[in-house]
């Protein structure tokens, strides 16, 4: 082997790689294209994206083009970065907590769709954003290590501190913010004191859902903050009953996922058509077993049996989006103060 052959190999590989990157970008040509901005897991091969596009393309003689970013919060950041130049016709994947902020950007147009027949707990309705699925936040526990899960938020807060829970950080993640609002909705002005008590039970606070759920499935803690629908995945896809959600007597905080059309939509009619399609049975039937969330309207066939065995909260909490936007910083500060005490 000559002295510099390895270096040569490197440079050749790099040239080939650069060429590959250039050719990987082919243009998509179609006469009418609907551009949908969404979060990334919506368009993975097992997500709802491909099926939704196929079903909608049958009805519209158009092409659906997805742009995926990390998550709902990132969607809004992306829109703010792009400003008026954004190519998005539809933005799908914000949640109710982001609605007020999204409206304040002025990028969105009213959908003008009569949203009757939608079954969303918490009475959410909005002139700009339409819901397409929802899930309740819940404490998911491991039945093998936790025989008596807490039956209420109060029991979680005041229970045995040696039974740990992993939660997400409200500064960096939506489930984290969800738990913060849940505690606020139940405890009101006492929320700070409740957090100070819960603190001893918290094993750690992760930046996002993936880290928390990863620690939980590795067995590091018997509980994690997730969704009432999480057990459905394990039951349907893995045929396992091991992980279950705990029903809390006070009720559960809800996360409703919504979509809206932009003011500068290149294809406003098509965008409106998509929003109407979104609440119809074709779209709704795809959601449960691909996005692992609850549908907001009738599906073509009954949901898989596992969904009937999920926790169905009797009481739903949902703080108005404007109130969340106004108080988020103060509430996070309250959380920080309570959680940082020694």
């Amino acid at each position, binding site marked *: 082997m000559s002295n*510099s052959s390895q270096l040569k190999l490197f440079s050749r590989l790099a040239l080939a790689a650069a060429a590959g990157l250039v050719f990987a970008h082919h243009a998509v040509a179609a006469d009418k294209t609907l551009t949908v901005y969404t979060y990334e897991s919506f368009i993975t091969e097992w997500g709802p994206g491909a099926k939704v596009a196929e079903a909608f393309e049958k009805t519209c003689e158009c092409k659906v083009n997805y742009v995926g970013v990390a998550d709902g919060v990132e969607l809004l950041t992306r829109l703010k970065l792009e400003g008026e130049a954004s190519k998005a016709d539809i933005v799908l994947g914000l949640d109710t907590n982001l609605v007020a902020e999204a409206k304040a950007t002025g990028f969105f147009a009213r959908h003008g769709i009569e949203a009757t027949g939608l079954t969303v707990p918490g009475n959410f309705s909005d002139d700009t954003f339409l819901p397409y699925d929802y899930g309740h936040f819940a404490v998911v526990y491991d039945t093998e290590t936790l025989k008596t899960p807490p039956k209420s938020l109060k029991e979680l807060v005041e229970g045995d501190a040696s039974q740990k829970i992993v939660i997400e950080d409200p500064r960096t993640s939506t489930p984290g913010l969800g738990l913060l609002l849940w505690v606020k909705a139940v405890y009101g002005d006492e929320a700070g004191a409740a957090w100070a008590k819960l603190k001893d039970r918290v094993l750690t606070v992760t930046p996002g859902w993936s880290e928390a759920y990863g620690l939980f499935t590795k067995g590091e803690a018997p509980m994690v903050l997730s969704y009432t629908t999480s057990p459905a995945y394990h039951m349907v896809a893995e045929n396992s009953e091991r992980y279950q959600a705990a029903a809390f007597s006070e009720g559960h905080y809800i996360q409703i996922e919504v979509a809206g059309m932009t003011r500068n939509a290149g294809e406003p009619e098509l965008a409106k058509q998509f929003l109407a399609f979104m609440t119809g049975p074709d779209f709704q039937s795809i959601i449960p077993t691909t996005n692992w969330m609850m549908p907001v309207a009738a599906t073509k066939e009954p949901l898989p049996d596992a969904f009937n065995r999920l926790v169905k909260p009797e009481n739903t909490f949902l703080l108005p989006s404007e109130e969340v936007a106004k108080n988020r910083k103060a509430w996070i500060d309250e959380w920080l103060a309570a959680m940082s005490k020694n």
Partner: protein
Amino acid sequence: MFALRENRMTVVAGAVCLGTFVLFVGLAIVALLSQTGGASDDALFDAYIWRVTRFTLLQATLSTLLSVLFAIPVARSLARRPQFQGRIWLLRLMALPLGLPVLVGALGLIEIWGRQGFLNSGLRWLGLEQPVSIYGLFGILIAHVFFNMPLATRLFLAGLERIPAEYWRSAANLGMPSHALFRFIEWPVLRGLLPGAAGLVFMLCATSFTLVLTLGGGPAASTIEVAIYQALRFDFDPPRAIALSALQIAMTGLLLLLLRHLATEPEEGMTGGRTVRRFDGASSIARLGDGAWITLAFLFLVAPLLAVAFSGLEADLLKLARDPAVHRALLTSAAIALASALASVTMAAVMIRAAATVAAPRRATSLARGFAGAIAASTSLILLVPPVVLGAGWFLLLRPLGDVARFAPAIVVAINALMALPFVHRILAPAMATHAARTERLTASLGIRGVHRLRWIDVPALRKPLLMALSFAMALSLGDLGAVALFGSQDMVTLPWLLYSRMGSYRTADAAGLALFLGLLCLIFTILGTAENDRRREGRKA
């Protein structure tokens, strides 16, 4: 005459590199600053930021101390034992932690150190009830040492291996005992490398984010990087994000300046370049000590890596290996890693040479010293500029040109190349200084210049550090998620991106399988990067 012209060209090339670098960062920051931010009327330096700053300093200082203190004896032991079974593999594995996405590394560490981990299971089996808790400052330190001790070890080891053979021969003739060898031969070399290595580790720990939150046990353990992320993400307040980055840079910059006082000008000993042979460390105590350090480092490093590999083996690897999405991600990741590593190494080599040319003591003016200083500072401090800030800035700049996603590969490669510069610089700079001291005058007097010198003198002699720099830069870029995240489009899915996406939709087994692939790819790069075996064989033939 010719030499002068060549020097001028070297300096111009270095200045162009530095200029591009400064422009790339500067433009991004200007673009972000001109963006009207969120509702930010709160003071920048409130109690929260002070607390976060204090914690950042505390954990980064402790992490650095531990990493370096662990690395020194390990590097020394490895240098003293150049030929044991599996040595090359230990060195290769040392490049691996950097190439793993932090979350993967963290989960591996938890399998060993966690509540249900290997260690605690063992302790419980022995009848000890109280488990060792990884959640808290202890866990952060363990994780940072896991990620950074190997890096520091490789940097120190490279320095120790550059010590001329003549030194060891003379020391043996003088019958110098082990502690004297350390004091007079090894320590001066280590001390010269210490500020660079410690500074690098400090910066990596100060900007740590996922590890600090995941293992920290609560928000009392937060770094400035968390606040930057928060400012840019939930609050969309670019000016605040930049102000916080500036705080981070100022703070760490001061620390690096302090560290530089530790450094002494390394003395480059002349050598005939014969194969280094060490005569020390033959006593059984020395053997035992070296063996213990090497075993300890091996276990500490390899156990979590093995845990990652075992989790990966439980996945349906065949299905993953046939998945076209995985193929695309593998190719994309490899292409980005190769391109950014080559860019980074080229840039670093040009800038180091330019800095050395202008700062050669006889004709160094204050302007020249400033130029050399700017190169040293910029190649270090870049690590403190969050990639998300650069990405967002360039997103804004490219927006008027139409579809930003088209530029994503170029921007991601550029950001990764810049982020690898501090590593590459620390590997190449000392090696190039030694090389220059040993060959400069001779090549000049023989009139070997330009491409000829590069081909016949520089590249052959510097092959080892060049390859090591390439492999580190590639590993680094392979594990990176930050730069890709913002541009993320269907056309450019890297392996870590795919891994996180599977993990985010309950597919933990798939994610573990992908982590194994990522680790293997990284290992392949490091095998290409450690060419020692080949050379040894060649040496024997000759």
